[in-house]
């Protein structure tokens, strides 16, 4: 059906007695990647997710096109669940939204130009590195511009444009016939492409190849202190932490954290910051159209807040932290954005003998309910008296609470890597095999 817009659907829903909300996106993307072939792709996608609420019941449907079928399908779902839950609510505006300028620094055509620039630079680096026996096995440069909007029958009608770039490089080096180093993976994603420095990427890859080629063969103390780089924190700590601080999981005892549980490390503060400069997860409003704000999660050993959306704030009777996240294909859930780790005193974590963990493998095998993990250290090295030796085939085990309790030192090299902003941290009390 042509000529239908989101307001027609919301009006019809309202006339039928429903409180309704449409979350929509219009997304343009471009990416270039190469393994043994170079491929370039452009894409366009639009989609609409409709929630309706009436008499303590919820309906939902999505579509890539706008028509009244969207409403009919949501009503079918509404009728399919008999159980009533009066915590369902399409939210009303809660204060004004302070729009972030730095999440849309470039238009899509400028993003496309940046992608081509990065692509040319990577090609040059690829040739340069191959002469030093480092093989870039894969890279990807991609960028996007998206319009995200939320409109509902309760007075919210808001949208914003966001654009950004992500870049990833994967490399290895042949040690001898049939044996290569583990994959070395560097990546960044940002709303500000000038933050990405390819020199830094390439230097890190070269350093890591050198570390891995100098293999440590002696046994290592199972309780050795661990230093997590920001990349390792983004890969291991972030998924476990993000899941554990959701009000839903805390409320349902599906989290290792609870309001009454203390962390013995009183020097650590943890903040969720959806307005962190240039982070790709930053946004002016959450997926229900409510203004974003910083949330202090952990301070002086106490969990001060967990993250919520409208439903779970109502259900658990806690403050709504406006942490709803979703795609148009799903209902809103809860997630962290950029997590900041802060320590009272910061110092150099490199002293004595320590195992540095830069990449881990198998985080998807962790138990996200309990926070237990047993992951392979796919890129790590032993630091001892300013010398570095690559370690292979090592398993790191523990629990996310062990990490929080065990942080003894945070370096002053604070930076954002993916969705975490921190210095490197030194942790006691984890186990290696």
């Amino acid at each position: 059906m042509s000529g239908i817009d989101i307001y027609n659907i919301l009006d019809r829903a309202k006339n039928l007695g429903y409180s309704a909300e449409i979350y929509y996106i219009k997304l343009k993307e471009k990416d270039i990647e190469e393994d043994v072939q170079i491929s370039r792709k452009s894409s366009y996608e639009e989609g609409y997710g409709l929630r309706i609420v009436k008499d303590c019941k919820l309906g939902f449907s999505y579509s890539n096109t706008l028509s009244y079928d969207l409403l009919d399908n949501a009503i079918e779902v509404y009728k399919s669940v008999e159980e009533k839950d009066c915590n369902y609510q399409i939210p009303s505006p809660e204060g004004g939204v302070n729009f972030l300028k730095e999440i849309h620094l470039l238009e899509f055509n400028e993003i496309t130009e940046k992608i081509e620039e990065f692509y040319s630079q990577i090609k040059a680096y690829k040739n340069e590195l191959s002469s030093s026996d480092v093989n870039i096995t894969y890279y990807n440069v991609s960028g996007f511009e998206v319009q995200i909007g939320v409109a509902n029958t309760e007075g919210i009608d808001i949208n914003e444009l966001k654009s950004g770039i992500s870049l990833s490089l994967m490399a290895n080096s042949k040690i001898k016939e049939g044996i290569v180093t583990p994959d070395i993976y560097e990546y960044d994603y940002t709303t500000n492409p000038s933050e990405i420095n390819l020199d830094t990427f390439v230097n890190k890859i070269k350093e890591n190849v050198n570390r891995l080629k100098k293999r440590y063969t002696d046994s290592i103390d199972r309780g050795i202190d661990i230093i997590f780089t920001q990349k390792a924190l983004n890969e291991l700590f972030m998924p476990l932490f993000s899941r554990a601080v959701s009000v839903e999981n805390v409320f349902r005892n599906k989290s290792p954290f609870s309001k009454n549980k203390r962390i013995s490390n009183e020097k650590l503060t943890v903040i969720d910051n959806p307005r962190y400069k240039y982070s790709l997860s930053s946004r002016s409003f959450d997926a229900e159209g409510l203004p974003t704000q910083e949330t202090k999660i952990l301070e002086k050993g106490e969990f001060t807040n967990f993250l919520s959306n409208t439903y779970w704030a109502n259900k658990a009777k806690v403050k709504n932290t406006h942490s709803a996240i979703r795609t148009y294909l799903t209902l809103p859930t809860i997630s962290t954005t950029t997590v900041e780790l802060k320590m009272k005193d910061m110092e150099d974590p490199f002293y004595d003998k320590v195992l540095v963990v830069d990449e881990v493998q198998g985080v998807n095998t962790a138990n996200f309910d309990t926070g237990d993990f047993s992951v392979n250290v796919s890129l790590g090295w032993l630091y001892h008296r300013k010398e570095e030796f690559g370690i292979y085939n090592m398993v790191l085990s523990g629990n996310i609470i062990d990490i929080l309790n065990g942080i003894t030192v945070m370096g002053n090299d604070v930076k954002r890597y993916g969705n975490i902003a921190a210095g490197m941290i030194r942790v006691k009390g984890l186990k290696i095999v």
Partner: protein
Amino acid sequence: MHYEELLRKAEDRGADFADLREFKVKTLRISVTEETSQVTTNGIDHGYSFRIVYKNNMGYSSSTKLDEYLLDSAFSNIKEEGKIKIVLLPKKHDEVIIEPKVLTSKSISEKVKELEKIRNDLKSFSSVKSISIRYYEDYIEKLYYSTEDRVIHIKYPVSGVSITVTSVDKDGNLVSASISKSTYKDYVLETFDPNEITKEAIERLENQIRGVLPKAGVFTVVLAPEVVGVFTHEALGHLAEADLAITGILLGLKGKKIASEEVNVVDSPIVDSTEGIGYTPYDDEGVEGKEVKIIDKGVVNDVLTDRFYSAYLGKNPTGNGRAEDFRSKVLVRMRNTYMLPGSHKLEELFEGIKEGYFMKSVYGGQTGSDGSFQFGIQEGYYIRNGEISEPIKSTGISGYTIETLGQITMVSKNLEISSGFCGKSGQLIPVGSGGPYIRVEKMKVGGT
């Protein structure tokens, strides 16, 4: 615009080859917990992916609309010096359709009620503190059109249920257990008995409650079919995907014996099992699925390819080009990957093990191109003096694939296939995996 018009216009503009994938997937997701019942997804995900080869260059585009954007964008992505070749195939028109009877006849409301019944059954166990039941169904329709005049139409359902239950152990620590079942035949709660699924979830949870932390180190282990499946998929199958095989270790080992003759691993487009959800009669490049013998009598034999890697390696395509949806590019992916049964009786595998482990179920796994692998164990037991003993918890197994394959000393006669989802480059696709029971003489086990 019609697909024929799009392909003709591509040829008119000089394309040597063009193909269009149309994906139309009716999706339904239901979440039932101890607190709520929600339909979390309901709709049709519909879009197009277009590709051209022009003077040995390739350009891609995708969109939720079938219009000139697809054509113009694909051509705008032609930039490089031409190096790309793909295998071209003869004309073919075919249709493969599985029509579910129960899945499409049941209403959303009936499905919600059946899931709520499982929830209520689980609530009757006092040890259960939280319940998460996730139901999904995708009624997948794929249409493939190419300038070779290949028109392939596939339609089939995939539906599944996963249950996670949590409890608290004697020390007050949170423990959890999960079970998942999926099928491509029809409605999962008709194909599998919900009571059996519930029973197994509770058994796993109770093992976690009374489980002990295992001793870490290198041990002799017996792996059950589900773990063997994850091992063959994660540790070996990924290494056999042509894009990873080229830069990794497997291609260089082709023709070499790395395991005993009893070790045989295949990747198959269709397997005779309800859980063989890697069902791929034609892949997403319109290629007929062929079985690939990755390891044949202990010898590295073959790799999985799409049209591009077939041309690159100078071999026939195997039908392993798969994409998660219309947004995603085709990658070399597995379908149903499993180890073939051997000659031993199950009890022989445990004989003579003084202290070791029996690993029955996994959380999932991951592998590196250097051949390293790691996966988490959710159900495992000590083996003491050849007998299965107390349950263990919170552990993982890891190692190097080639070394581990060489450590397999016995393969049982059984064969079981499990369903799962495989992630690669951000794309998640349904796969089957499995095998017999195997005995591995030395394997690294994580723990205390």
